């Protein structure tokens, strides 16, 4: 599976994703500069964490209008997969590739901590190896991770089963106390209607090695690899 990791000015999880994909998963991976529009050679594009353009206006706003993100529309239409984590999720929302928006954490502070996620939708290429209700442990690191969508959008997300992860307690129960940033209904990650574009605030790349304290993030990558069928296309939902 050929991965591309996008680098915007101010991105910092690019190296971490690159490391996990090449050194842990042993898959081909290349960096993709933000001005690039040619993504044809890739199977999965990763939009990593960081502070693209400093996030000075709104998190992800400027990157959401960059050439590489414009090219993602076609890439997705042709069946390509996109994983946006942290700033990547913010960018996907700002670009309109995912509905809703990520706003300032309710506590008004940055939060870097371990969280539990309960899997809600195990029917995407990113989560196929998981089961609904499964609890994952993954860190977050952000100041603007509070997910918001208007009531109609939220209803549609639920109706179409597009919420992939919610923040939860260790036993999987979705509680107010387990919500680290005030996200609407504890939403931590969502997917587009086709299941090919996943946005999530937590960092799977930081939970992909035992040495780093856990490998639940790796389960997502393994799902991805398992979704690749022989003719080079992906299992559809």
């Amino acid at each position, binding site marked *: 599976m050929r991965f591309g990791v996008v680098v915007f000015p*101010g991105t910092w999880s690019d190296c971490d994703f690159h490391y996990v994909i090449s050194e842990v998963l042993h898959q081909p991976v290349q960096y993709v500069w933000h001005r690039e529009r040619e993504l044809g050679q890739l199977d999965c594009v990763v939009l990593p964490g960081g*502070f693209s353009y400093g996030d000075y206006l709104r998190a992800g706003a400027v990157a959401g209008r960059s050439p590489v993100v414009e090219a993602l529309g076609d890439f997705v239409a042709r069946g390509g997969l996109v994983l946006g984590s942290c700033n990547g999720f913010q960018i996907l929302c700002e670009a309109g590739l995912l509905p809703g928006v990520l706003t300032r954490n309710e506590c008004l502070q940055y939060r870097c901590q371990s969280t539990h996620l309960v899997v809600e939708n195990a029917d995407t290429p990113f989560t196929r190896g998981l089961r609904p209700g499964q609890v994952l442990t993954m860190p977050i*690191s952000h100041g603007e991770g509070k997910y918001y969508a208007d009531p109609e959008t939220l209803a549609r997300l639920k109706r179409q089963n597009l919420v992939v992860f919610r923040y939860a307690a260790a036993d999987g129960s979705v509680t107010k106390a387990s919500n680290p940033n005030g996200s609407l209904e504890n939403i931590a990650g969502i997917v587009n209607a086709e299941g090919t574009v996943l946005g999530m605030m937590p960092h799977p790349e930081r939970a992909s090695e035992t040495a780093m304290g856990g490998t639940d993030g790796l389960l997502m990558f393994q799902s991805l690899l398992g979704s690749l069928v022989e003719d080079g296309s992906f299992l559809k939902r």
Partner: protein
Amino acid sequence: MTGAEPKVTLDLALDAGLTAEEYDRILTRLGREPTYPELGLFSALWSEHCAYKHSRVFLARLPQSGPHVLQGPGENAGAIDIGDGWAVVFKIESHNHPSFIEPFQGAATGVGGILRDIFTMGARPIALLDSLRFGDPDAPKTRHLVNGVVSGISWYGNCFGCPTVGGEIAFAPEYAGNPLVNVMCVGLVRADQIFRARADGPGNPVFYVGNKTGRDGIHGATMASATFDEHAEERRPTVQVGDPFTEKLLLEACLEVMRTGAVVGIQDMGAAGLACCTSEMPARSATGMDVELSRVPQREEGMTPYEILLSESQERMLLVAARGREADVRRVFAKWELDAVEIGRVTAEGQLTARLNGEVVAHVPVDLLAEAPKYQRPTAEPPGLAELRAFDPLTLPEPGDYGAALVELLASPTIASKEWAFRQYDQQVGINTLVLPGSDAAVLRVKGTSRALAVSTDGNARQVLLDPRQGAAMAVCEAARNVSCSGGEPRGVTDCLNFGSPERPEILWQFAEAVEGIALACRALDVPVVGGNVSFYNETSGQAILPTPIIGVVGVLDDASRRATQWFQAPGHRVALLGPPHVSLGGSEYLWTRHRRLAGRLAPLDLEVERRVQRAVRAAVSAGLATATHDCSEGGVAVALAEGCVTGRELIGCMAALPADARADVTLFGEGPSRVLVAVEPERVREFEALMAESAIPWRWIGTTGGDRLVVTVGTKAIVDVDVSRLEGAWRHGFERHVA
């Protein structure tokens, strides 16, 4: 010359912070009166902050070399060889004065400055640590400062993308008018690819790179070289504003241009900005520089040569490129959308020549600028110190309830959990952090090798006040011990020496003694000091801070998987106390928290025992014998035991017994050097005992983990018997309660 600029006189020179003798020296060397911009150059470069006028003679005492040292003091940061072709570059810096004036931006730009010191050497920053000191934790002003400083560090470090993995926060009334913000940064670089701040090769082009120059921070260096008074507020316009996003681009651009081979030398424009770089870089290379100031990218209109030379705008570097390689420099910086402008050339004449539209506005020998006078001012032991030391804590009453006393101590904001602060810091970006904040030392792996680095910063100012020499030595020992506890072998030290005005003999005495103590400890432990920072004039209206040397230690674990953390891992493990029995309530956290006294004598320090204890702990960790290791520091052995119980993911109780050879409060809460708790699985007790026997150190078994209470027996009486969840509650909320 620009007409608006005042004529230089002795009075103006005095105003600029120079002494009459210094001004005389300038007149003699120049053979004429300096121009106004030239006076600015001397004022900044001969300031205490840039020139270490009062400290250099003392700092020469520090051991600065060793087999692993690749770069000692004198560059932007020190460098140590860690094997496998890798080196660590590290340094600690203070940003005390700016942080008091504007806590958020002051702390943020402090982080920015130390990051540049590291990447200007060619290293990628991989870790930050912050050592902070504030006044009374209950004062509203303190809360404002803590919030501002922590969020400033959080903003800059997180946005830039370097994890903050450790530090400390302590409180004492003496810091009310002068908080301390010390930040250490550690970077990684190939040992043969370290860059230096040199301007070799006359004819080579000089590039200005990074953010544009504005009027911010003019006189920052001089401000950091003066004490505060009621007029501090009026100095506010000098505040600098940070831009971590541009800094991140600058990092990537610098590392990329270095890889092209086009870079001869590079230095960050920190204190005294362009003036500093254009004189220090050629001074190191016995060359000169000729620069055209109108080419400097400017953010504001009508800036004078004086302002352009002395601006402390952030996120800028001066880069000397190899002649003919200009295009490489331009290409890389254009890619990262940063300014890179050729502003001049390296010359052979040993002069700094600054021009404005061709006209010379400053023409000064660089060696004169770079070699400020050195002073050895008088020192004198502070009056009253002997009396303070003579205080006998045993004249104070014993606590009625030792369990409650322990709970109170755990809740003291200096001891309690600092999670409220470090959960605002990204601790993991770079995916290297094997041990996150919350243990004695943070541990970071070195990718592509089996090795890891352990880092810690420490400093106990109360101990330094009572005995500067031993207190400072103990700070070195504690930082090194924390590193050893994690399994790392200490390899190098960086120190940030925060003191009052060196013009006062009793302050300079504290300083001289502290430096001597650091030197003694570093020699005994065989760790060189490869860089550091002196911050004098930390006083407000005549009230100096506690003498506060902060010590940063970097150590190496050859096998990253052989490491230890401070919390108990499982019930049933035996707990040993390594180290000498000597402890004292003098200067202890207990004496302060319970009795508001800062007095008494310190327990003796035996550096040879310290060395052996640390070696024994490392041996136990690397043999896989230790399931937990924890240094006994503030709060003594009782607090260390309680921390073993409550700081891990699960709460685990402990039963411990200590000999009744002193009053129980001394035994439990007394502080002393060289003491470490080690937990050992029952099956490995024999092996551990054999190792201890070999190590020739004092030690004893004191307890066993398990249950849900911490029970400590002194002699025959169980005088502490507390539910661990109560201990945990006190520890977890004790800090946050004051600052949130």
